[in-house]
């Protein structure tokens, strides 16, 4: 064996066990380094996005051309349709949005932005990814078992989800529950790392309100997740027992109640949307401030608002159950709380717009994504008001109006904000610059078709298109040519949007290996991650930074430079 030169690592005071050159296994597969674990989550999440997107492609093709074989898949049977929509939703939320936004960006950014060398529990961090990877294997494997993938919708309501004789996907129904439960455990473990690191391990001089917004957001999101997922874990165990042991937790004939599951699910399900929203808003805020050279308007207000929203998010859940047969007096309560919660979110978006006002705006690719987030999310939020009003919801519930609403919130969260974050932090993560021109082409090729997919869906929902129907030709009033034209428009737009993602894939992979080398701080940003090399070494800094000010000191009057890094002594 060739002698290996001991690579002089930037030695860290408290000893990283003196790694010399690490083997491939230790560096990429068995790493405890938060940056590598962040990449593991991100790449897994991005791969699962391809899986989820493929599923959307197939069922949208079925919607546009019912009964015709879909290229790359074949004819879609009703059971397969159910499995596709179920797993599309499940995968996009739990295996794309959460891993990329929370675990991917959280792992990479938090230690860097608070100025420490790693997370507080690196080995638990590694374990959390391993559990997550196991959950990924289980959900993917469930697509190929006898009966096919679970077909009971991502909400998995019993009795459909509890009885194999109803869902016809008995094996995958159990695998689905196990996969989701494992994913929950992985994120509970990860969350403890994020919260504890952010609370305790800040650089000397970094007070709570000197922490960049994205870190606050990921931490608050982790807390929201932790507080809301418990009852659902309990409920999932109960569902598993109903599926496997013949218990009757959700079976009214045996003293149980299916509505119990709904409550346990949505008690988590509603805070969950804020769990994914908050990191996205954090990314957008940090992108916006850098590319408008302006301080975040109302930083403390935003944090207080977010905490308030988080609390309020626990009081709105039954708006998903308005027509399920809940006590109508509760429906009144939940309508009020739901409409009220739009106020703080709206206020936050206004604060973002106020941040832009008077700024020196540079429309680089990350900024385009951030601006698109604000515009598209506004549409999503506003359409939520219709659904939050129990009267209107009687009509809209379970129609495509709902589908369009939540895609106008979820796509900005899981797609637009993610691309904003990737294009912004790519130089730091990989030490290379992405191609701006390709970035812009990808941007427009994503955002314009996105609207053309989902605006038709609002109209279709209002016209009566019910969700989770595999073929509308069975419904004469819905099988009209003008409605079918809208379905076809949505599908074609999806095809266009998907093809532009190849531009991103090419840009990403090509830049990874052949992009121009990045300097430490290509965007001239204030936050701590930009003060170290691109990419940062193991241990992040040779000399740990101290902090002297907040993260948003841009365009400070009287200074020569329009930014003022946090670690620069006064």
């Amino acid at each position, binding site marked *: 064996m060739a002698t290996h030169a001991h690579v002089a690592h930037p030695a*860290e*005071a*408290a*000893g*990283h*066990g003196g790694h010399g050159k690490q083997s491939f296994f230790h560096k990429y597969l068995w790493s*405890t380094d938060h940056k590598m674990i962040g990449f593991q989550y991100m790449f897994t999440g991005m791969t699962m996005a391809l899986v989820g997107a493929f599923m959307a492609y197939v069922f949208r093709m079925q919607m546009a051309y019912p009964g015709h074989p879909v290229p790359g898949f074949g004819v879609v049977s009703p059971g397969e349709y159910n499995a596709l929509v179920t797993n599309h939703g499940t995968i996009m939320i739990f295996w794309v949005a959460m891993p990329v936004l929370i675990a991917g960006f959280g792992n990479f950014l938090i*230690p860097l932005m608070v100025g*420490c*060398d*790693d*997370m*507080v*529990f*690196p*080995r638990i961090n590694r374990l959390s990814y391993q559990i997550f990877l196991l959950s990924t294997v289980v959900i993917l494997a469930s697509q190929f078992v006898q009966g096919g993938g679970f077909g009971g919708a991502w909400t998995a309501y019993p009795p459909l989800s509890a009885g194999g004789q109803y869902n016809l996907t008995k094996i995958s129904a159990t695998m689905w529950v196990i996969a989701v439960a494992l994913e929950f455990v992985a994120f*509970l473990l990860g*969350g*403890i790392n994020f*919260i*504890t*690191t952010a*609370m*305790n*391990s*800040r650089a000397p001089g*970094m007070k709570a309100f000197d922490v960049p917004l994205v870190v606050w957001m990921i931490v608050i999101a982790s807390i929201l997740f*932790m*507080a*809301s*997922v*418990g*009852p*659902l*874990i*309990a*409920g999932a*165990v*109960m569902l598993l*027992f109903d599926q496997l*042991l*013949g*218990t*009757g*937790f959700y079976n009214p004939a*045996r*003293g*149980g109640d299916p509505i*119990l599951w709904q409550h*346990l699910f949505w008690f988590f399900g509603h805070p969950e949307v804020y769990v994914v929203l908050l990191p996205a808003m954090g990314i957008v805020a940090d992108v916006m401030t850098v590319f408008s050279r302006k301080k975040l308007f109302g930083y403390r207000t935003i944090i207080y608002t977010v905490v308030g929203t988080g609390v309020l998010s626990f009081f709105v859940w039954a708006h998903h159950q308005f027509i399920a047969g809940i006590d109508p007096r509760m429906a009144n309560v939940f309508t009020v709380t739901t409409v009220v919660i739009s106020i703080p979110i709206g206020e936050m978006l206004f604060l973002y717009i106020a941040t832009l006002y008077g700024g020196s705006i540079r429309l680089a690719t990350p900024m385009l994504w951030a601006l698109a987030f604000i515009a598209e999310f506004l549409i999503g939020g506003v359409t939520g008001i219709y659904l939050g009003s129990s009267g209107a919801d009687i009509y809209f519930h379970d129609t495509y109006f709902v589908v369009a609403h939540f895609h106008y919130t979820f796509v900005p969260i899981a797609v637009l904000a993610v691309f904003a974050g990737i294009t912004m932090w790519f130089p730091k993560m990989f030490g290379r610059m992405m191609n701006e021109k390709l970035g812009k082409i990808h941007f427009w090729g994503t955002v314009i078709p996105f609207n053309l997919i989902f605006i038709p869906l609002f109209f279709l929902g209002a016209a009566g298109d019910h969700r989770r129907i595999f073929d509308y030709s069975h419904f004469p009033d819905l099988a009209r040519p003008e409605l079918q034209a809208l379905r076809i428009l949505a599908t074609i737009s999806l095809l266009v949007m998907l093809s532009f993602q190849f531009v991103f894939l090419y840009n990403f992979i090509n830049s990874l290996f052949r992009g121009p080398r990045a300097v430490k701080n290509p965007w001239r940003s204030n936050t701590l991650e930009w003060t170290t090399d691109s990419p940062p070494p193991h241990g992040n800094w040779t000399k*740990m930074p101290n902090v002297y000010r907040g993260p948003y000191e841009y365009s400070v009057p009287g200074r020569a430079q329009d930014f003022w890094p946090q670690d620069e002594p006064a």
Partner: protein
Amino acid sequence: MSAHTIATTRSATGIPTGRLAIWWVLVSEIVIFGGVLVSYIMHRLGHPEWGHQAAHTNLWIGAFNTLVLLTSSLSAVLAHKAAEAGNGPRAARLLFATVGGGATFLTVKGFEWTEEITHGMTIQSGGFWSYYYTAAGIHATHVLAGMIIMVFVAMAALKNQALHRVELVGIYWHFVDIVWIFLFPLLYIAK
């Protein structure tokens, strides 16, 4: 292969990192047990007839197990006291005693459940029994997990290593004890 990072040594809140983390773990566990227990309590309140099923739980076994867990909590906190005094081997012995308490608890439960199941009171036999086995089962899983972690902490403590972890695993163990303190009246006394 210890991964001591600078991050672990800092403490902006004044609470040592490990202890802060354990409290967060407990927060997440409270909601999990809370979910099961809230569901159970509301069903019990709405179904007084479940008392007929509940009448068949064995109060004495439940009480004995409560005594076992309380005593194991005592040995756990005495282990913490020993660890703080720097006496790793004594802390380890007390931790092993705690593990022994957990093992006793689980063994007794094993016999108890065997008895109940062979007499036809299975997890499917009724609403009460479904919750009984589920709640106590989730609790027992946590007892087992705590025992396993405690063994690792005790083995390090024998060599006077990582003594701060004695307190941390103790806090977790006390929580498991507190859950049982509530399960006992809920499952055994309320008839």
